[in-house]
């Protein structure tokens, strides 16, 4: 699962049909519109075509907080960033090099967020400049003034005007015109683009497809006639079959591949789309999405289904996870297998529902009253979103335990090509065996060494028992004596140690000994590894480590950390910084993984974290690495 960031090869310039073509190892572009103008569709199509042609790609949606925010407002910007490269792309990169904006205001939002490179090329619809409404014209003037603080190369495009030649409502045309422009600029294979459009409109009338192709072609020819730059990001034909999808789709497919048979959920952003995807296909496979009346019922139904012989899962995000807390305890106590997917978003409370954060880690590991040992793991790529569900289901069943899968909003909506998984029937859960069990078979016949025990399933003659969340013995009979309570807690806890004993130490990316080790978990992996690779190219002594298992932690961390002068985590969650008022090393609240690592290894693990509601940029991480290494000896 290691990533190879695009090489920083020097760009080469060539000449093609009168236009300079700059060959680059990678590029970052954005499509920005008012909500409802289809920038996301345009961008996702562009990303998919690029992946199909053999580029590495990573797309990130830019999602406004409202359903239909007012047009022409910075807050309402809707769009997508696409980073493409010759090699595999693992994160959204630093700043955007080329942006197509359907109006000045949505562009401003990205400008204000410092998302655009200082020398970015910007293709901006010029319609507002001469708008009927004087307020719009005034806003345009002010926006251009504001934008002039940077060295952008701003190109006015008659986007609306050109579209009106083909459609009545330009709101439904600009995105295809833009796709045409981009296809020309990036030398995309037009046939593939049309195939993509055909697929997209496969449920619509043919005329719709044709109109969109006309828009596409108009965009191509306008660009050809008016633009003086093109970018070639060389493609490499992948030597294996590839698929491209976002993390939530991958989680859903993974769930089906794992043989999970029920997804019991309650809608919550950014987790819901897992269930949207599954609602379309799951029942054909004999599975079921159950939308429950609330999050508590959602996990309760999943637990009931698991008790009855399935391994069910539920998918949620922060506020929903909070509501499931009590039921998680019951699943742990009754040793009912259960998979819980938490697609993390910005917190606390309702927080930033559409934005990324990694702030549920400690709540996942420690959040339930009483002693609740459970497995917590985190996918770090879209591909891992798929495969982790298979791992999760298998662990849940083997260990009769709760497995929490910590994804996040960055993985959820990000698209990335990856090797097409070769499905294996053994990944599927085995249908429960309902044959009779001998008299005396206990429902919790714990192995005294490992704490493991086989499940009894309703329907098995002779196996009748009552599961209970009260303290109980191997017969699941209520017991409150001290020894039994101590022993059963021991056995439930032991399972984590047994699992841990089967795990391998995590693999460091970079030198085995160095001045600094940067540790991360989940979706930040690509950005961190790219940063340390850049750092190494600069001669910095730095390595990276990504942790898939957070509970139990993989073995060998202490030994690994010894090989580095300094260890720090990089996370998308909150930590105090030492230069802030009142904060000192003693009272500092630290990043969540940093906490876990410090308590476990007693190594002085530092952290750098941000809660910007955005994925981290490799460039910012690199700056942190430089700073940390420059800070010299004091660790």
């Amino acid at each position: 699962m290691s990533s190879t960031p695009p090489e920083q090869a020097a760009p080469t310039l060539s000449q093609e049909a009168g236009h300079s073509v700059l060959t680059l190892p990678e590029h970052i572009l954005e499509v920005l519109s008012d909500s409802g103008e289809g920038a996301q569709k345009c961008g996702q199509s562009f990303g998919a075509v690029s992946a199909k042609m053999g580029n590495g790609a990573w797309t990130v949606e830019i999602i406004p907080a409202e359903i239909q925010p007012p047009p022409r407002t910075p807050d309402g910007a809707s769009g997508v960033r696409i980073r493409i490269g010759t090699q595999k792309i693992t994160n959204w990169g630093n700043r955007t090099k080329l942006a197509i904006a359907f109006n000045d205001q949505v562009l401003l939002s990205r400008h204000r967020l410092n998302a655009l490179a200082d020398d970015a090329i910007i293709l901006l619809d010029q319609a507002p400049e001469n708008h009927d409404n004087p307020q719009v014209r005034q806003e345009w003037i002010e926006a251009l003034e504001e934008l002039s603080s940077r060295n952008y190369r701003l190109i006015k495009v008659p986007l609306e005007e050109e579209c009106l030649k083909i459609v009545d409502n330009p709101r439904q045309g600009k995105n295809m015109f833009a796709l045409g422009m981009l296809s020309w600029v990036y030398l995309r294979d037009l046939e593939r683009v049309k195939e993509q459009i055909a697929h997209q409109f496969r449920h619509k009338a043919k005329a719709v497809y044709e109109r969109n192709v006309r828009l596409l072609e108009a965009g191509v020819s306008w660009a050809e006639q008016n633009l003086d730059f093109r970018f070639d990001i060389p493609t490499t034909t992948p030597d294996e079959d590839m698929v491209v999808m976002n993390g939530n789709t991958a989680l859903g497919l993974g769930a089906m591949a794992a043989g999970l048979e029920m997804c019991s959920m309650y809608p919550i952003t950014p987790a819901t789309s897992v269930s949207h995807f599954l609602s379309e296909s799951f029942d054909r496979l004999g599975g079921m999405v159950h939308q429950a009346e609330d999050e508590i019922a959602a996990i309760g139904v999943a637990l009931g289904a698991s008790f009855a012989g399935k391994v069910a899962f539920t998918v949620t995000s922060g506020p929903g996870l909070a509501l499931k807390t009590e039921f998680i305890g019951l699943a742990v106590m009754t040793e009912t297998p259960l998979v819980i997917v938490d697609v993390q978003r910005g917190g606390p409370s309702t927080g930033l529902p559409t934005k990324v954060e990694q702030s549920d880690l400690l709540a996942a590991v420690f959040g339930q009253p009483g002693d609740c040992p459970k497995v917590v793991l985190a996918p770090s790529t879209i591909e891992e979103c798929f495969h982790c569900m298979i791992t999760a289901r298998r662990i849940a069943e083997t260990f009769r335990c709760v497995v929490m899968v910590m994804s996040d909003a960055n993985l959820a909506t990000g698209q990335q090509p990856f090797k097409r998984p070769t499905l294996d029937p053994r990944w599927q859960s085995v249908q429960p065996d309902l044959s009779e069990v001998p008299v005396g078979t206990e429902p919790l016949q714990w192995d005294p060494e490992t704490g493991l025990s086989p499940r009894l399933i309703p329907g098995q003659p002779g196996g009748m028992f009552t599961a209970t969340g009260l303290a109980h013995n191997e017969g699941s009979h209520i017991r409150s004596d001290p020894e039994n309570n101590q022993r059963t807690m021991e056995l439930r806890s032991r399972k984590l140690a047994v699992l841990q004993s089967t795990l391998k130490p995590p693999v460091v990316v970079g030198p085995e000994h160095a001045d600094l080790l940067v540790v991360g978990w989940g979706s930040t992996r690509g950005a961190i590894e790219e940063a340390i690779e850049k750092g190494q190219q600069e001669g910095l002594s730095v390595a990276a480590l990504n942790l898939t298992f957070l509970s139990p932690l993989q073995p060998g961390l202490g030994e690994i950390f010894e090989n580095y002068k300094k260890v720090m985590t990089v996370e998308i969650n909150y930590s105090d910084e030492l230069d802030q008022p009142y904060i000192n090393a003693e009272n500092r609240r630290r990043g969540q993984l940093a906490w876990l690592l410090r308590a476990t290894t007693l190594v002085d693990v530092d952290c750098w974290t941000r809660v910007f509601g955005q994925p981290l940029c490799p460039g910012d991480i690199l700056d942190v690495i430089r700073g940390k290494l420059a800070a010299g000896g004091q660790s």
Partner: protein
Amino acid sequence: MSENCGTLMGCGVEDERSFSMDDYSGPLARWCPGCGDHAVLAGVQRLLAKEQLKPERTVFVSGIGCSSRFPHYVDTYGFHGIHGRALPIATGIKLARPDLDVFAVMGDGDCCSIGAGHWIHAIRYNINMTVLLLDNNIYGLTKKQTSPTTPQGFASNTQPRGSFLPALDPIQTTLGVTNASFVAQTADWVPSHLAQTLEAAHAHPGFAFVRILQRCPVFTPTIFEEAAMNTDLTELLEHENGVTDEALKGVYPHTLYHDPTDIQEARRLAESSSKVRLGVFYADPGHARYEELRAVPKRTAEEKIALLNAEIDRYAV
């Protein structure tokens, strides 16, 4: 009602076992002496024996409370869950395994207070299960706090100067929920009525909600005293499609002919309160059943793989 053995994952062989009430008895029930829960347990075991339900295909689900210890005392499968959440667990079991015969047992705090949201929605889902509300008008296990069904004025440890509000009527509330399909009331102290009501509920294809007036001699000894002693205070609802016990009619002087398919009349009867009404208020097997609407094909691992491959193809590069 369950489709026993054979349908989904069953044995396919004719079952030759026969079960007595004893075959359904778990460990000795640990309720207080005189607790109405004992009578309900006996009534349920009688039903199980009468219907010859296979212990291994029967599941009792409960929440937390005195009444929720119920599953431990029946020798079938069981899930003693958490407070207020019996119905989601039961729903999950039945959705996963429609072949199992599912009973849910709840207390009045469990069902009508902390579990109220699930209760409303489970009525609406109308999943085929038998649902018993053991209503002692009090929080028993936690030692005498006001429950939603506590009579106004009755003193508890949290409302020592008497319950503030009129008691919630679970029958009326259930009848207000769209897709309610079976609503009945019986009492722990009328064993034959209890038995017949349980039978009718179990036979009903859908969510069969039975409120059982249940005596708690420890915390609410006075509440049902009169009704249990004075047969004049009870009115039996009688109908060919309801519960009709000729013997009982000799004991209880008041009988009312009520057609349980008439929901308007059912609501009217639930409203007026001069007598304790026992019987089937409403029953209509024609309502939409969620688990039926959600039936999915059974697939082998290989079939799944094939379908899944087609699914993945949609994302092929």
